[in-house]
């Protein structure tokens, strides 16, 4: 599964903008991502398993809130930071 990493989280991926991570749901992908890049998940998903206010998670072009959303092999996950303020 290809995961697109936003700039503010690339310190975790050693600068990589895209990483390949296996998983059959969004939650599994994020867990796997965190195993590979420790700490990255908590910066975008809170302790109640909710996407943080200024983060957005897309599967292809669909924004998802349910981390249990199933994935197919051709899907891509796009993580966005919704910047606001100064």
């Amino acid at each position, binding site marked *: 599964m290809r995961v697109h990493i936003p700039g*503010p989280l690339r310190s975790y991926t050693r600068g990589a903008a895209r990483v390949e991570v296996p998983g059959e749901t969004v939650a599994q992908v994020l867990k796997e991502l965190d195993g590979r890049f420790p700490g990255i998940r*908590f*910066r975008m998903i809170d*302790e*109640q398993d909710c996407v943080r206010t200024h983060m957005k998670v897309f599967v292809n072009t669909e924004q998802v809130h349910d981390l249990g959303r199933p994935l197919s092999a051709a899907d891509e996950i796009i993580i966005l*930071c*919704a910047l606001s303020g100064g």
Partner: protein
Amino acid sequence: MARSGKSSAKDVLVMVGTRKGAWWLRSDGSRRKWSLTGPSFLGHIIYHIVLDPRDGKTLLMAARTGHLGPTMYRSTNLGRSWKEVERPPAFPKAPEGEKGRVVDHVFWLTPGHASEKNVWYAGTSPQGLFRSEDGGRNWEGVSGFNDNPNRSLWMYNDQDQTPDGGKMHSICVDPRDANHMYLSMSGGGTFESTDKGASWRPFNKGVAADFSPVPDPEFGQDPHHMALHPLRPDRLYQQNHCGIYRIDRPEERWTRIGMKMPKKIGDIGFPLVLHPRDPDTLWVFPMDGTSVWPRVSPGGKPAAYRSANGGKSWERQDKGLPTEQAWFTVKRQAMCSDHGEPLGLYFGTTSGEVWASRTEGGSWQCVARHLPHIYSVTSAAIER
């Protein structure tokens, strides 16, 4: 803060946490000339940077950014390199169908008792108490507070707090007894535990809450900064939303020592600094708490106020500070001392200036300007 002994023996490091990163000021023991380095973690909101006085080299830094969740960084070489902690403070996952609490940011850090080498405490926003037993790498909630059945009574619900979120701060461990602790909350008041956080009781008698419809409430006050004197741990001071207070245990009632402040200045502010060698000497930095609470330097004329007699009288200390049109605020973590002789004092402003005094407030010099909004100023004595 590390104990330095003679000021000339070690350099002084002043650690500045801002809304956009951390900066570092360093001077030799004379504290006449300062060099500024940074930023570290540019773009991160740095709420608190605290040195572990037990080893003199480990730092913890509470951070988040505007869009990423909270975390904490740890350095074991006085900030030359940093590593993110493994498990930052987080509330437990709520059972299905229930609403769980979410840590917005870590607001306050306190090293544990000298006998507990790797213990740290953290206070969060919204108010939560967390403890680490491995030097800050992994954090667990202190159930005696976070799961206390009275917690929602003490501080209402998280959504009822001020817009920037309720804060837990001023976590104090009695140097005589690791089981004996105090903490304060904005809002919620001050609380005491004698069993290392397993249970807590309100400790607010005598503290005004003039915003509350309840007269002389047991809890719900708004302490801004509370501190216990390390040489006389039965003496505590607090700068509150409603005045400056002192208590000498076993007293149970706080005394409002701020009533001796000049009436036109008032006794409202955020920070409080205790002289580490003299339990009678303390400093505050008043702000305007009138009308709509501008929370700026009263009249645009900033000044520290010192009491050398436990709050019986106060002396204005403004030599070197702007004399007009200076409307900054000094936040609660943004004023500190070193351990030099005479004592050095430091404060950072919401307008991004750091001011220093090497004469216990007798005069001030601006040692950094044009930084972002300053949240935290702490110091450390370090080897040259």
